[in-house]
């Protein structure tokens, strides 16, 4: 997998944008751990700025708001006719969003920024492991 190797003089780069090949030139790109860039971005280092930004890993807050909103909508849709298709579709949406929220919560619980960094850059100083 293509990765960018970043070299900074003083500060170790934390999370690196993945999937873009930069042969010789060392580029410093610094992002906070929750951001991950999609490899379909056009050239990162050069002329244009990317035209569209892929959605970031949705922060659970955003999903939580969606869940709340969808519950309200479902309750409204069902006041007229609880047996209608619209009611079922609305509650199905609530279920889908709740599942997405729970997955996001689990992911957030497990993600350790250092572990994430080291998964992709095991050769860096911070990530070296010694067996003996």
């Amino acid at each position, binding site marked *: 997998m293509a990765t960018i190797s970043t070299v900074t003089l003083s500060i170790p780069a934390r999370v690196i944008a*993945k999937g873009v090949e930069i042969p010789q030139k060392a580029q410093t790109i610094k992002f906070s751990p929750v951001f991950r860039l999609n490899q*379909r971005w056009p050239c990162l280092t050069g002329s244009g700025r990317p035209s569209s930004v892929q959605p970031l*890993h949705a922060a659970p807050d955003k999903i939580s708001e969606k869940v709340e909103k969808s519950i309200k909508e479902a*309750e409204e849709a069902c006041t007229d006719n609880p047996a209608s298709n619209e009611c079922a579709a*609305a509650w199905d949406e609530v*279920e889908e969003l709740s599942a997405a*929220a*729970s997955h996001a919560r689990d992911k957030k619980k497990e993600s350790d920024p250092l572990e994430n960094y080291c998964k992709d850059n095991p050769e860096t100083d911070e990530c070296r492991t010694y067996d003996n």
Partner: protein
Amino acid sequence: MAACTLYSTQCFNTISSTPSSKTHLGFHQRQVVFYTTTNNKRSSNKRSGNNNTGRYVITCAAGDTVVIGLAADSGCGKSTFMRRLTSVFGGAAEPPKGGNPDSNTLISDTTTVICLDDYHSLDRTGRKEKGVTALDPRANDFDLMYEQVKALKEGIAVEKPIYNHVTGLLDPPEVIKPPKILVIEGLHPMFDARVRDLLDFSIYLDISNEVKFAWKIQRDMAERGHSLESIKASIEARKPDFDAYIDPQKQYADAVIEVLPTQLIPDDNEGKILRVRLIQKEGIKHFSPVYLFDDGSTISWIPCGRKLTCSYPGIKFFYGPDTYFGNEVSVVEMDGQFDRLDELIYVESHLSNLSTKFYGEVTQQMLKHADFPGSNNGTGLFQTIVGLKIRDLYEQIITSKAETPVGAAKA
């Protein structure tokens, strides 16, 4: 290594040979049809009356992908099962690196897990407009599902759409390369008959209503906006579609893991102790059901006693033959939970046909993932066992494909 298999077909009338097409792996895929008139001496799986002419198709393909189907409703433990399954094969399954961060696909060294939600034909707004739930077949593109699973099974990479659960939109497709083991998990893996025929093994997670309610409460009560009523309403509203489209799939499954409330505690409404049944279909190729004591007999077993001390309410096992939707099955049932390691080892040493590679492998796998939900009860135990069975099935299929002699058509 390309393995060539011999198929006996009844429906070819012409001699034809398809030109070889290079798959992405660089293997050449050739299909040659021989037309012969013989008595059908070669063993054929299907025996039909009009066997005067035997026509043979030899397919040499690099595609030796084994396809497993896993069906369950949302919030029923598919993800946990997936993690256990991929762990049995070795390695951790992760989303494809460098791709869409909201991809539902998981890839490990041997296994690729595809979420069938990616084959939704209607996105969230589309479904809302039409008043259709995701459970409804109208919201899914079964033709595409069939084409792509077939292609992957034959060793051809596909561009699979991505359904983004966060935005509810269909994102641009991602490339999926054919793996050794392909798992398709979702609501409808066994709904379409063509896709069903592609599956080498299928599993259905059948969670009873009380347990489902308890699990969803556990999952959703932390969310703002949710209340007991909203969770209940959500389950009730989806029930008609679930019963009509999802539930009938369990009759086709080779293994059903049924989760019910415990019978050990009268009037239990906490739902912490579970009674889990592993219903295994008999007569499935490469799959030999797990049994207790003796294959085909009926036995009820309480392991707690002199050798093993269990805490309340203890553990109870049951094994016996049964019929399930008209099929012969063997049922292994566990009620209760494991509190200590030695209980697990003791139980494992008395179960037979586990397809473990060494003594204690089930226990080791359960301990490896002690933080997964269900690790102390039948759900984790049977999921692990089914994982080992799938590994065994995979190895048997691979060895049988390697052994089939090339050019075996002795016309």
